[in-house]
C-alpha cells in the first residue's frame, strides 16, 4: 500500500479547480466574420455527434495542466510504495539499553523482549538488505555497521546487555537515520519503552508499565562532628509500598528500617554512618519490576579520594587548606623529580622552577610548565581580579572579584580557559596532551586570596576537578591523566577486569554503566568511582503512548520505492508536452495569420 511522507501536501490539489476556472476565463471567443456559416453549422453538428472524444481533444491542454499539478503535488506528498521481491531499504535497529529496559513487567524483561523483536525482524530481512545495530544507552553506540552479515548482526543483538544508565534515544535515532546505503537513508526501528520525539521512526513499543519503588538518590555529607551521613531518597512510582531498607558499609550492616511510601511520593532518609571509610550499600528488600534501582552504592569517608603530592617549599597556609579539603592524603616534598610527579594522581607545584610537565594533573602555584601553550610577558606588580567565569567546575561557589594580587606572572594563554583575570589571567584551566592543570600564576604569600573564605573552596574545587569526582552518574566515562603510567586495570562492580592502555597521556574509561564501585589501578595508584544509583529518570516504568509517534510492529521490511523522483520526471515530461502543444498551436495561428 502506498504511503505518503507528507500527506498535508495534498491540500495543494485545490489548485486544480483554480486552473479550470482560469481556463474557462481564458476561453473567451474571438469574433470572426465569414462569408457564410452554412457549412460551419453542418460541421458543428458533426462535431457534436463525436462529442466525448471531441471534448477530450479540445481540453487536452487543460488535462495536461491538471496532470502536471497532480504529479507535482503527489510528488511533494513524498509517496512511497512497498514492493516485495526487491532489496529493501537499509534498516537500522536501535535497541534501548537503558535501566528501565531491565524491568520485568514483560517476560523475561523488556530488554529480552526487545532482543527477540529485533531478532525476529532480522530474520525477516531480505538477503541483500543491509542492517545496522545501535545501542541506545547513555551515549548512542554503533555496535554493527550496515551489513548483510546476518550472523554477525544476530550475535551482536544477543550480546547486548541492558545497563543502569539513561537513554539518549533521539541521538541514537539521529545516528540511525544518518546511515545510508546506496545513497538512501536507513529506516530506523526503535525497540524501546519510550517513544522517540522524531517523526519517521518505527517505534516498536516494549513493556506494558508497572509500579516501582526506587532509591533515586544517594549522597554523603560530613556533619559538624566529622561523621558521615548517608542521605537516601526513595520514590514510589505507581502505588504505595512498604519496604525494608538495609544499609551496610563494606558488608557490615549499619542501619535497617522499614520504609512506607505513598504512591507518587518520595522519602528522604538520613543514615548515620559514623567515621568509617569504605563503600556503603543501601538495599530495598522485596521485589518489584525493576530490581536494579532497589540498590544504591556510595563511597564514605576518604575512600576513593585522590592522593595529593605537594612539591615546593613548605607553606603552612597551603598545607592547612589541603588538609581540610577531601583527599586521601597529602604528601609534601621538595625533591621529587618530574618522573615522580607523573605517578601521583594530583600534584601541586608550588613555585617550582618551570620545566616540562609529564602527563598528569597539576595545580601550579606561581609557576608554569614549559610545555604548556602559554606565553609569559613579565610580571604585573599589582592587580585586582575583575572578572570570573562562574560556570566552570573550578569556580563553583567561588567569587574572586576584588582579590588583590602582587607580582603575578603576566600570562597570555593560547589554549584552555581563563577563569579569572585582572590585568592578566589569574586563574587558568588547561587540559590537553595528557596534562590537566589549574594555574594560579602568583605566590600565595603575595595575595590576600588566602585570607578570603573562598580560598579553601577554590582549592577543593581544583583538587576535585583535577582528580575527577569519584561520585559519577551512571553512564559517565571519566578521563584520567595517566601520568607516566601506560597501562591500568579497570575492575567493574561485578568484579570483572579489563586492561586500559593510556592514549595521549590519559586513560579513557568506558561508560560506567552499572551501579557500584569501579577501580582503576596502576602500579603506583588506584582511583575509584562510584555509580550510586541507576539514572533516576529510568525508575518510572510507565509506558505512555506518544502523542506524535505511532506504534509500529516489527513487520517485514519491504523495499520502499520512493515515487517522488518518478512523479517529478512524469511532471517534467508533461510540462514538455504541454509546451509542445502550446507552441504547435501558436505556430499554427501565426501561419494562418500570414497573408496568403
Amino acid at each position, binding site marked *: 500500500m502506498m504511503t505518503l511522507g507528507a500527506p498535508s501536501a495534498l491540500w495543494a490539489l485545490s489548485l486544480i479547480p483554480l486552473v479550470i476556472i482560469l481556463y474557462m476565463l481564458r*476561453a*473567451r*471567443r*474571438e*469574433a*470572426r*466574420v*465569414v*462569408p*457564410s*456559416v*452554412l*457549412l*460551419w*453549422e*453542418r*460541421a*458543428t*453538428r*458533426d*462535431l457534436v455527434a*463525436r462529442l466525448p472524444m*471531441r471534448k477530450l*481533444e*479540445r481540453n487536452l491542454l487543460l488535462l495536461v495542466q491538471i496532470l502536471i499539478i497532480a504529479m507535482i503535488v503527489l510528488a511533494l506528498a513524498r509517496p512511497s510504495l512497498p514492493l516485495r521481491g526487491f532489496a529493501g531499504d537499509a534498516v537500522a535497529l536501535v535497541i534501548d539499553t537503558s535501566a528501565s529496559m531491565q524491568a520485568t513487567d514483560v517476560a523475561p524483561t523488556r530488554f529480552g523482549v526487545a532482543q527477540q523483536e529485533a531478532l525476529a525482524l532480522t530474520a525477516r530481512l531480505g538477503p541483500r538488505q543491509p542492517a545496522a545495530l545501535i545501542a541506545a544507552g547513555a551515549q548512542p553506540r554503533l555496535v554493527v555497521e550496515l551489513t548483510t552479515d546476518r550472523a554477525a548482526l544476530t550475535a551482536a543483538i544477543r550480546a547486548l546487555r541492558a545497563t543502569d544508565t539513561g537513554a539518549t534515544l533521539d541521538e541514537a535515532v539521529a545516528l540511525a537515520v544518518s546511515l545510508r546505503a546506496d545513497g538512501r537513508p536507513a529506516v530506523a526501528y526503535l525497540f524501546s519503552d519510550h517513544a522517540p520525539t522524531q517523526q519517521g521512526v518505527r517505534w516498536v513499543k516494549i513493556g506494558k508499565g508497572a509500579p516501582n519503588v526506587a532509591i533515586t538518590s544517594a549522597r554523603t555529607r560530613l556533619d559538624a562532628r566529622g561523621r558521615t551521613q548517608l542521605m537516601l531518597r526513595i520514590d514510589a512510582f505507581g502505588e504505595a509500598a512498604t519496604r525494608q531498607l538495609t544499609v551496610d558499609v563494606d558488608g557490615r550492616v549499619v542501619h535497617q528500617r522499614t520504609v512506607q511510601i505513598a504512591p507518587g511520593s518520595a522519602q528522604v532518609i538520613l543514615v548515620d554512618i559514623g567515621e568509617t571509610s569504605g563503600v556503603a550499600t543501601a538495599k530495598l528488600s522485596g521485589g518489584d519490576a525493576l530490581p536494579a534501582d532497589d540498590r544504591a552504592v556510595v563511597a564514605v569517608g576518604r575512600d576513593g579520594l585522590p592522593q595529593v603530592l605537594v612539591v615546593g617549599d613548605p607553606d603552612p597556609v597551603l598545607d592547612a587548606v589541603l588538609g581540610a579539603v577531601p583527599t586521601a592524603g597529602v604528601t609534601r616534598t621538595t625533591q621529587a623529580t618530574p618522573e615522580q610527579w607523573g605517578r601521583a594522581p594530583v600534584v601541586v607545584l608550588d613555585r617550582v622552577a618551570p620545566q616540562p610537565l609529564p602527563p598528569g594533573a597539576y595545580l601550579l602555584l606561581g609557576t608554569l610548565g614549559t610545555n604548556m601553550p602559554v606565553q609569559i610577558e613579565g610580571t604585573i606588580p599589582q592587580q585586582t581580579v575583575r572578572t570570573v567565569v562562574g560556570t566552570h567546575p573550578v569556580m563553583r561557589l567561588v567569587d574572586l572579584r576584588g582579590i588583590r594580587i602582587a607580582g603575578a606572572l603576566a600570562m597570555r594563554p593560547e589554549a584552555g580557559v581563563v577563569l579569572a583575570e585582572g590585568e592578566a589571567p589569574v586563574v587558568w584551566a588547561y587540559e590537553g596532551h595528557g596534562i590537566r592543570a589549574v594555574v594560579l600564576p602568583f605566590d600565595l604569600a603575595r595575595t590576600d586570596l588566602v585570607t578570603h573564605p573562598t580560598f579553601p573552596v577554590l582549592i577543593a574545587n581544583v583538587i576535585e576537578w583535577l582528580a575527577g569526582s569519584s561520585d559519577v552518574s551512571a553512564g559517565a566515562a571519566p578521563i584520567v591523566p595517566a601520568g607516566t603510567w601506560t597501562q591500568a586495570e579497570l575492575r567493574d562492580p561485578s568484579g570483572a577486569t579489563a586492561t586500559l592502555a593510556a592514549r595521549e597521556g590519559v586513560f579513557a574509561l568506558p561508560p560506567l554503566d552499572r551501579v557500584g564501585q569501579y577501580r582503576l589501578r596502576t602500579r603506583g595508584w588506584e582511583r575509584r568511582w562510584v555509580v550510586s544509583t541507576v539514572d533516576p529518570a529510568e525508575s518510572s516504568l510507565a509506558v505512555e503512548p506518544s502523542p506524535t509517534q505511532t506504534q509500529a510492529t516489527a513487520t517485514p521490511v519491504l523495499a520502499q520505492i520512493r515515487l517522488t523522483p518518478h512523479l517529478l520526471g512524469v511532471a517534467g515530461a508533461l510540462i514538455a508536452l504541454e509546451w509542445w502543444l502550446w507552441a504547435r*498551436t501558436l505556430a*499554427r*495561428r501565426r501561419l*494562418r495569420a500570414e497573408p*496568403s
Partner: protein
Amino acid sequence: MDQLTRAELLLEPDFLARLERLTLLSRRLYRSGSRGERRSGTLGRGVEFADYRSYQVGDDFRYVDWNIYSRLDRLFVKLFSEEEDINVHLFIDASRSMAWGQPPKLDYAVRVAAALGYIGLANLDRVGAVAFTDGPARVLPPRRGRAGTLTLFRFLGEIAPEGRSNLAGALRDYTLRTRRRGVLIVISDLMFPQGITDGLRLARYHRFEPFLIHLLADEELTPALEGDLRLVDAETGAAVEVTADAATAEAYGRARDRYFGEVEQLCLRLQVEYLRAATSIPFDDLVLRYLRQGGLIA
C-alpha cells in the same frame, strides 16, 4: 465613366477574340421569334437542307424540287433546318458573401458572366443578366447582337455585393417577369440558407435550362482558422461558436464534401448542369477549358 471603363476592362481584347470562336450550347433550342445563327429543331426556312416531304396544299412553290418532279413525276418540297437564336439568362449572385475570396468571388463571377454573355451576343443569342440577392436586385433585359456587349459589360461592372441571398426568391420573381425561356446560367457560391432545391425546381418548372456555376474561395474550401472563435455570417449575422483545430477542420471538410455531394445529386436529379470552381483557378482556364468540358460552350 468609371463604370464604363471597368466594364471595358472586364475582358482582354485578345480573350474576346478567342471567345468569338465559341458558341453557347443548349440541349434544347428555344424559339426566340427571330432567326439566329443556331440550327433549330424546326424545319423551315433555313439554308441548310434537311429532308424532303410530299407536297401539301399550301406549301410554298419555291421549295418544290423540280428535278425530282421531272424524274419521278411527283411533287416534293425541300425541307431546310431553320436557324434560331437562344435566350441566355446570366443570373449572378450579388450577395455579401460573394465579396470574399482572392480574387473576390463576385469579380470572378462577373468576368465569367461577361465572357458567356459576349459569346452569346457574338452568336446573335439573346442575352440578359440579373444581379440577384434575395430577389432580382438589378435586371438587364435580354438583348441581341454585338451592340449589346457594352451595355452588358456596363451592367456587370456596376454589380456590387450587398444584402442576403435567396435563389428561390430571386428566380420566382424573375420567372414571373420574363416569358423568354432559355439557358439560365446561375453563378453563385450557393451559400443560401434556404437551399437551392426550390430555386432549381422552379427554373425547371418554367422550362429554363439551368446551368449552375458554383464559385468558391479557397478559404471556404479550406478555412484558415485557429483557436476559439465565434464565426459570424456576413449576410445573416448568425453566429456559430467553434474551436478551430484539427478535428474541427476535419469536420468542416466532411460537411463541405457532403454538401457538394448533395448539390451534385440534386443537379443530377433535376437535369441541371453543374460546374464547381475555385476562384484560384485562372479565369481563362475556367472559360476555355472547364466550361467547354462542362458542355456549356463549344
